[in-house]
């Protein structure tokens, strides 16, 4: 059943964000309407919204500040940034449950970058650690 719905969505050209119903508000706050976001062309500043089966298209400037902020959060870049932040948080939580990882996850390790050491935050939660005790002398 899920597969059928996905095929229908793909065939209709709708992305999953098109399923997000929202109450939209005009820039001056005087009007609202219900609709599902179909697409947002950030470069052109054009929003397409489905009101029932009808598609309406308008400039993003016609929307309230809150709507514009929400649209910004729906861009691929914003979603990618959020996914990355969520991933980092999940790794840190996993490391927090380790005896070793909880100590070194952040603010303890350094890596060589260009001409100096910079702080290193663990990007994954390994099961094992090889610790190499050594010195230049």
């Amino acid at each position, binding site marked *: 059943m899920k597969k059928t719905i996905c095929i229908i969505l793909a065939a209709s050209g709708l992305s999953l964000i098109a399923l997000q119903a929202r109450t939209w508000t005009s820039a001056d706050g005087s009007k609202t309407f219900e609709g599902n976001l179909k697409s947002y062309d950030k470069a052109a500043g054009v929003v397409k919204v489905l009101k029932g089966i009808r598609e309406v298209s308008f400039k993003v400037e016609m929307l309230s500040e809150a709507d514009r902020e929400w649209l910004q959060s729906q861009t691929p870049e914003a979603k990618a940034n959020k996914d990355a932040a969520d991933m980092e948080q999940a790794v840190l939580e996993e490391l927090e449950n380790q005896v070793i990882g909880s100590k*070194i996850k952040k603010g*303890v*390790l350094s890596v060589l970058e260009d001409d100096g050491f910079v702080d290193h935050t663990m990007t994954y939660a390994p099961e094992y650690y090889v610790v190499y005790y050594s010195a230049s002398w």
Partner: protein
Amino acid sequence: MESFNNKIADNDKVEFVHFSLDRSPEAALAWAKKENFPWPHVLADKHVESGLQKYAKRFVPYYMLIDKDGKILAEGSQAVFDKIDDL
């Protein structure tokens, strides 16, 4: 470095951590730059905070394989890299 590249660099189950016993950060940096070390380091000012100091021996170099719960699985270069094959 060869063992690191072959067994750890692309191994998500294992992280390699260099516990630098150089007291001077300049010396640690010079050595890391000279050898172009790709792994993370625990520098002298973070020894205690890292929790890894308690495993250190009185001599270097020394390798140790520890699991995420702090249990020692292998000690010494040969034993450590052999053990990684079994993980």
